[in-house]
């Protein structure tokens, strides 16, 4: 032990390992959490950029393709083309001798008792299935002709809904909406809850009593009532929707942060700071807030899925997002109504929702294990 020597050079300091770095290391070792994070990243990328990449817009209606099942093969199917041609040419008063489809081109031999008008191809083009109708050969007596038309091919990998809209595009947009609501509502809940809880917990006493009494009363108000009130007041508005959800979810956050703050206030390092004469702001900034972040982060990852389910539930009741915009809850509600005839309407949105919720839950569990190792 040397007597302090002010002229001694200040030695370089080695690097320490903070609790955050430790947590990060533990998180990376947790396979389920890493996998969940990857899945989540893919889903988020798909939700953000997917709608620009897929061939259909989420609100384009293909009236020929109402409730087509999911398929990797392009539509229309070969056996669907012939009836469509017959239907299209019915009004053209021609007899169809033969129909052949090859390489996306339909060739139709037609005969008629009268002269065939070359504009007959317009009947074909009137159908969504065909473009570039042309008369390839017209017999000299104009009584028979060979018509060709390009068959417009569509891919509906996940099928179409009851209005003939592409499910893939709709699911991607729905995921985007659901995630946005989940994240934004959580952010709203976070801001209100952390502030409220930290203030109540840190100041304690009467302030705390009154503030927590208010929370208790809000808790015992039936939650649906609250949401319905908000919907009744503000109408069915996308932005207000998640503000409303966030405004409800903050209660739990406030309780957690208050509990943490109360516990921290009793910890010796906070008392030590008080004994040093550190002012309130310094204690909150250096000692309270950094130590409440762990539980808050954990709770956040678990809140996002809760909010998504909540939004789905409200959409299921018809109180949420409005057409043509959609969310996973809306899609699932539609799917549930059509479950007997068109299972894909329920299956794919449900899988997407489950995937997102699973990933978030496992990530949350992983974070809890990483940030709070004594719980293992």
């Amino acid at each position: 032990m040397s007597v302090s020597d002010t002229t001694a050079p200040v030695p370089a300091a080695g690097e320490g390992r903070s609790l955050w770095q430790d947590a990060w290391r533990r998180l990376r070792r947790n396979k389920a959490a890493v996998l969940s994070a990857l899945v989540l990243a893919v889903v988020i990328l798909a939700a953000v950029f997917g709608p620009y990449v897929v061939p259909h817009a989420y609100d384009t209606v293909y009236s020929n393709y109402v409730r087509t099942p999911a398929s990797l093969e392009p539509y229309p199917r070969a056996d669907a083309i012939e009836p469509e041609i017959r239907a299209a040419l019915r009004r053209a008063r021609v007899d169809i001798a033969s129909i052949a489809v090859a390489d996306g081109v339909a060739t139709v031999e037609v005969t008629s008792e009268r002269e065939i008008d070359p504009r007959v191809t317009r009947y074909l083009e009137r159908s969504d299935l065909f473009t570039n109708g042309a008369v390839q050969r017209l017999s000299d007596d104009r009584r028979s002709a060979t018509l060709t038309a390009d068959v417009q091919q569509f891919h509906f990998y996940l099928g179409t809904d009851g209005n003939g809209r592409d499910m893939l595009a709709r699911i991607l947009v729905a995921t985007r909406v659901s995630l946005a609501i989940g994240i934004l509502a959580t952010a709203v809940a976070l801001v209100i809850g952390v502030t409220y809880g930290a203030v109540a917990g840190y100041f304690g006493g009467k302030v705390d009593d009154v503030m927590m009494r208010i929370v208790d009363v809000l808790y015992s108000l039936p939650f649906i009532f609250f949401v319905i009130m908000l919907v009744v007041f503000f109408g069915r508005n996308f932005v207000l929707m998640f503000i409303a959800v966030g405004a409800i979810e903050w209660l739990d956050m406030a309780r957690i942060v208050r509990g943490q703050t109360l516990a921290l206030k009793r910890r010796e390092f906070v008392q030590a700071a008080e004994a040093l004469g550190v002012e309130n702001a310094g204690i909150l900034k250096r000692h309270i807030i950094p130590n409440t972040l762990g539980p808050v982060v954990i709770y956040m990852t678990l809140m996002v899925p809760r909010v998504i389910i909540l939004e789905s539930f409200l959409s299921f009741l018809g109180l949420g997002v409005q057409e043509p915009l959609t969310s996973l809850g809306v899609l699932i509600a539609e799917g549930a109504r059509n479950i007997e005839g068109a299972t894909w309407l329920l299956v794919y949105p449900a899988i997407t929702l489950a995937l997102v919720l699973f990933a978030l839950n496992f990530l949350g569990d992983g974070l809890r294990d990483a940030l709070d190792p004594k719980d293992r």
Partner: protein
Amino acid sequence: MLSYILRRFLGAIPTLFVIITASFFMMRAAPGGPFNLDRPLDPTVMANLNRVFHLDEPLFTQYLRYLRNLLAGDFGPSFIYRDFSVGDLFANGLPVSIQLGGGAIALALLVGVTAGVYAALRQNSFADYFVVATASIGTTIPTFVVAPILSLVFGVWLGWLPAGGWGDGAIANKILPIVTLALPQIAVIARLTRGATIEALRSDHVRTARAYGLPARSVVITHTLRASILPVISYLGPAAAALVTGSVVVETIFGIPGIGRFFVQSALNRDYTLVMGTVVVIAIFVVIFNLIVDLLYAWLDPRVRLD
């Protein structure tokens, strides 16, 4: 004990009062009214209706009238179900919701606690992972997805059970709704029980029981089960209150005449009395179940005192 219960009910009165007052004025502040929704009514008819239902009085007078009637046990007439009073609607619907909710609570406790304890005893085994994963699925998949799937599989495809309807309370009609209601609760209870059991198994007094050569069965049943049920009981209070007051989703999908449907419909239709009635009934159930939870807790844990 009796005086404690009495004190608890007295203590709940201010809370109930605040809830009733807040909901009353919030509901009234909402735009629109019960008679001007779909197609506009003739102004004179409207005025008559408003007079009959006292909607033309000052709001505060209406509020006092409502409180007075409520104290006399009168919830008032429903605005939408014109032939029924709100009291009648509850008298018909509440027993249905309570039967389903009660069944779901019993089922959830039975299956959830068993699965949780089993998983905890075999921590990190295949059975444990299976329970944890299933519980995750149970908590993440919403009821409105589960309900139609169950209805389709067991009602339509397999034809084992009615796909919906109440059937005057036949047991077969209750099974699917009860299972649907119970599934998410089973998941939560299994998780809670598992966590609490693992903690109890690690505790010093279980180590004592082991050190004294007590057989494994007695270690589990005597020294861990009680401790692991405690958090489940805390959780069940509010959850049970929500279950017995009906579920919109389950009642809509299975076509069941409970009271869960009233809330959404009545609020959207501005059926003021029905909304208020539902709020009051739910709040009373919350109070009752919280009390039951505290009594149970004190009974199971001698360290807890009732005062």
